[in-house]
């Protein structure tokens, strides 16, 4: 029994240690975001000034705006396209289905830099000016496959009898789609959308190549092309991003978690 306890304690220590190492840089950034001087290694007193400077810095705020807009728009587009594709794929002939699914795997397995260059070349060749449009197109291109591989497994696990019953009762295919299939897929669709949003918000390489020289930059490309080394405003920005994520994690865990479990208990 004692041996079990010792191993359990060791396991927890391991987990906590790893988590601590993962989060140390994040906490360090948050800590120094309140630094009165601009050093990243010596704390000189408490101050909110970097937050104030962050919000009044036109270019950085622009980058944040671009990141959010592109993430929202590309998520909506790719979720719709991807979900419809996943549903349709489940009804296609095996050959087409497998071919499409394999093709869908290509952008997922491809190293990002290859996708980035191919899009860079594509837009350059057809003289499509780099900017908002190319960024959104690129994000839709790499997000949609992820939506598909998230939603598709759920689609094929659906009970086909429900859809059949609906059409037997006189529903048009469109109605069946809206009233029977979508509601069942809601969880997977939301999951797919979440993945699409993350991939877009976080993206660097592809966004970099397709918006080069256009003056349009998202958070990642703006920071990468920032020439004057490390700017303390970055600490403030990351602290805020982490705050939003922290809130989401807390919400997921403490509020919707128990709520979900409640729902499941009620269902029976």
């Amino acid at each position: 029994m004692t041996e079990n306890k010792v191993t359990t304690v060791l396991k927890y220590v391991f987990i906590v240690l790893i988590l601590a190492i993962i989060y140390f840089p994040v906490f360090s950034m948050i800590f120094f975001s309140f630094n009165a001087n601009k050093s990243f290694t010596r704390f000189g007193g408490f101050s909110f000034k970097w937050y104030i400077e962050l919000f009044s810095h036109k270019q950085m705020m622009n980058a944040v705006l671009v990141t959010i807009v592109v993430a929202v728009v590309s998520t909506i587009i790719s979720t719709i396209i991807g979900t419809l594709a996943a549903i349709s794929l489940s009804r296609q002939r095996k050959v087409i289905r497998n071919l499409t699914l394999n093709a869908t795997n290509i952008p997922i397995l491809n190293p990002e830099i290859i996708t980035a260059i191919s899009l860079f070349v594509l837009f350059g060749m057809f003289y499509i000016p780099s900017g908002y449009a190319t960024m959104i197109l690129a994000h839709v291109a790499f997000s949609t496959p992820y939506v598909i591989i998230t939603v598709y497994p759920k689609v094929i696990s659906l009970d086909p009898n429900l859809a059949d019953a609906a059409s037997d009762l006189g529903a048009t295919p469109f109605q069946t789609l809206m009233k029977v299939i979508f509601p069942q897929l809601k969880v997977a669709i939301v999951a797919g959308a979440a993945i699409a949003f993350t991939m877009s918000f976080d993206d660097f390489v592809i966004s970099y190549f397709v918006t080069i020289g256009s003056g349009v930059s998202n958070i990642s490309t703006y920071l990468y092309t920032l020439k004057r080394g490390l700017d303390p405003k970055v600490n403030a920005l990351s602290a805020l991003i982490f705050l939003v994520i922290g809130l989401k994690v807390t919400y997921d865990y403490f509020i919707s978690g128990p709520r979900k479990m409640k729902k499941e208990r009620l269902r029976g």
Partner: protein
Amino acid sequence: MKNKKISGNEKRKQRLNTLIISPYYLVLISLILIPILIMVLYSFTKGESASLFEVSFTLENYLNFFTNSEFLYAMRRSIWLALLTTVATLIIGYPLAYFITQTRPRTQALLILLISAPMWINLVIRTIALKQVIEFFTEIAQGIYPNFPNIIGTNTAMVIGLVHVFLPYMVLPIYTVLLKIDPGLIEAATDLGASRFKAFLKVTLPLSLSGVMSGILMVFLPAATTLVIPKYLGNNVFLIGNLIERVSILSGNIGYGASIAIVLSVIMMAMILLVRRLDKFKGAEND
């Protein structure tokens, strides 16, 4: 062949089916497949012109790649770093995933959320944060031992950075697969007299291999081609990703950049096929 009477509803169903998948086919073809095709074509061209219609065709880019020592060196170094990273994330990530599966479901959910939350923070921001931390510790170390070397710029710093960034990508697939393993199998093994360790080795490990393969693929490829880590943690060294960037954008030689990207692709594809073969092989053994 069954003589099916295709009702009006069936026809409408098929039409709807084709309709709703067409936007995706548009995206797939125009934004994924065609660009790759164009890139392949470009890799056989030379010259700085942006239009494909004005350049000459040549194998020069590929020949240059194999004779230019810097590219082979960069590729070797990139692959070596990616290998180290993959092994490190496996050594840390597998036990982590395993221990997490042994906690209560609520704790599991929390731990998984905590592990994946950093993935939501931008890669550039995370790398900058790591650079600050490493510099901080280096300064302290140099205060004690003045001859302590600068860690930023070394392979060590880059591997630390890569492991830090890619650990969640290894943990999550392994966790997902471990979760699906029927605990009854392990019980059966121990009932039949195997020690817990042996049960792990003979039952859990083989069944979790597909998760391990997923993890390896999700870590190795991006780690080998990263642009961000060498810039901040590597003293701006040129790894294979940076070379592609320099050649395409700074030198304007898109054809050259495309050819490097394609050689990279081919190597990656070969590794994926190899990994897939191993997976099938293992899977067959277990049946």
